[in-house]
């Protein structure tokens, strides 16, 4: 991404032969510059600062100990099992939440693409989880749904138990028994509506002729879904996966609230936050930050390739 920015600024700086065209070029660039400069200052400069701090041994609670240690922090980070676990958790959370919510979102979008009584109302109900503020949603999940004593989930288990004459129904302590599942479930609940909205828009943009032609040719419902609808939906599924990953990989609120990063659920955002906020290890937190950025660049380059096909289709 820094490569892209250099390329862009290189293009801006290139001297032009004719004065008039140069002025014309600058008048074209002028509306872009405020936004571009703002973004460079706000995103690239902090990163340079992170890079510099990551080579220092700097604990904010011990003043006067700031010294240059070059790659020492990175060595610590690579051998730190907590960071490796955070990396692993980030991948698990992102992959699980994105894949499950895309799958559920596709099924629900297919259901909502049919006509039935109260379709608008069901669509509105489906969107609701996405519109609850994430930290509020996480708090409600932790205390009102998953609490072992009086959460709704165990309350429902009690009801079901009573229905079958069971006076001692199972009452799991969801968060401490299955912390990762709890985090994933709450995130899937919040992000399925997002996926569903994008995929539903994709289904509704599908031209009806190919489907009718398939029906005339005697294709079954499954066949016309597999060979007509699914290829059309590919772009939308990729878009949903890409955008979902951008947001979910950075998730902080759910881990912060449900488990406070404990029980082996700390992801990278939480681990970096904690090294800095609770541990006061500025140098190590920065090194972790740099590693996170490098990882993101690798994933991002791949993801950007997906988006570039979108732009290419547009200019064609």
């Amino acid at each position, binding site marked *: 991404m820094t490569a892209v920015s250099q390329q862009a600024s290189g293009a801006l700086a290139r001297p032009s032969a004719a004065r008039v065209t140069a002025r014309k070029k600058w008048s*074209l660039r002028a509306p872009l510059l*405020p936004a571009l400069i*703002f973004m460079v200052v706000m995103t690239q400069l902090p990163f340079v600062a992170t890079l510099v701090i990551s080579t220092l041994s700097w604990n904010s609670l011990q003043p006067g100990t700031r010294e240059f240690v070059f790659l020492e922090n990175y060595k610590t980070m690579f051998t730190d099992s907590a960071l490796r676990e955070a990396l692993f958790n980030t991948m698990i959370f992102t992959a699980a939440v994105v894949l499950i919510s895309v799958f559920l979102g596709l099924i629900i979008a297919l259901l909502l693409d*049919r006509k039935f009584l109260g379709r608008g109302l069901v669509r509105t109900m489906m969107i609701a989880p996405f519109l609850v*503020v994430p*930290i509020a949603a996480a708090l409600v999940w932790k*205390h009102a749904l998953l609490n072992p004593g009086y959460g709704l989930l165990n309350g429902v288990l*009690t009801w079901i138990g009573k229905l079958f004459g069971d006076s001692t129904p199972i009452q799991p302590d969801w968060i401490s028994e299955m912390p990762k599942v709890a985090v994933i479930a709450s995130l899937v609940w919040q992000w399925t509506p997002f996926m569903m909205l994008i995929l539903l828009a994709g289904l509704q943009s599908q031209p009806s002729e190919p489907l009718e032609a398939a029906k005339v040719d005697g294709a079954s419902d499954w066949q016309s879904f597999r060979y007509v609808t699914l290829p059309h939906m590919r772009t939308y599924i990729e878009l949903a996966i890409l*955008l979902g990953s951008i947001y979910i990989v950075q998730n902080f609120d759910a881990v912060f609230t449900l488990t406070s990063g404990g029980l082996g659920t700390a992801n990278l955002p939480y681990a970096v936050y904690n090294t800095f906020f609770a541990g006061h290890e500025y140098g190590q937190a920065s090194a972790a930050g740099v590693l996170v950025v490098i990882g993101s660049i690798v994933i991002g380059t791949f993801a950007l390739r997906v988006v570039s096909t979108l732009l290419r289709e547009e200019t064609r």
Partner: protein
Amino acid sequence: MRRTWIWGVAAWAIGLLFVAPVLWMVLTSLHSESDAATNPPSVGAELTMAGYREFFDSNPWPALINSATAALVSTLLVLALATPAAYALSIRPVEKWTDVMFFFLSTKFLPAVAALLPVYLIAKNLQLLDNVMALVLIYAAMNLPIAVWMMRSFLVELPREMLEAAELDGARLFTLMRRIILPLTAPGLAATALICFIFSWNELMFARVLTSTVAGTSPVFLTGFITSEGLFLAKLCAAAMVVSLPVLIAGFAAQDKLVQGLSLGAVK
């Protein structure tokens, strides 16, 4: 198509399952604390506003106002920066405009947490700690790439002939913006504003690190809301409800804009 009703029933069942936690939050917020914390749940218990009263007694107004300020001002800043930028990337594109588009998007792949420490140190040195303006700048940076992508997708759809006619009449960029571009892209601007507002209103991590007593936003207020003493479920749900209400209202009112915005304008 004899069995279509089955699919309708399935859609209803899944819809109810997804909305259930929200409904439960609303119901619990209207119960007394002792009715809220029972097993099995007391669905039919008497309704009361006690939870809301307790929430508003705990002085949430500064936090709500801070959130509104940070979200609204950063959204205005984003629109002011993104609209001309989108113009320079679509109607009169600069050379290498795709590179610029990818630069903007690539900043969204930068994990925000990597900037947390330097942003904190810079804010500290500029005396901007515990100041809403620091959040305004950060939220603007977080949402600007989304806004540029969205606004560009709306601007490329403007009829070229109209813009060219206006230019032949000698309209300058500013006039062009005000007279033609802004009125025609008003729905797009609204969608962009909605998304920027929601993301700013929801943000927790930077707000938590950069603010304390004065500039704390509603999400920060929520994290400190639960005291370990006594029952708190009803007032917690009331608080979650109040803080989510602006987003719920805006999102329900503009469902289609939500889709456009979330897909960076790729889905219309």
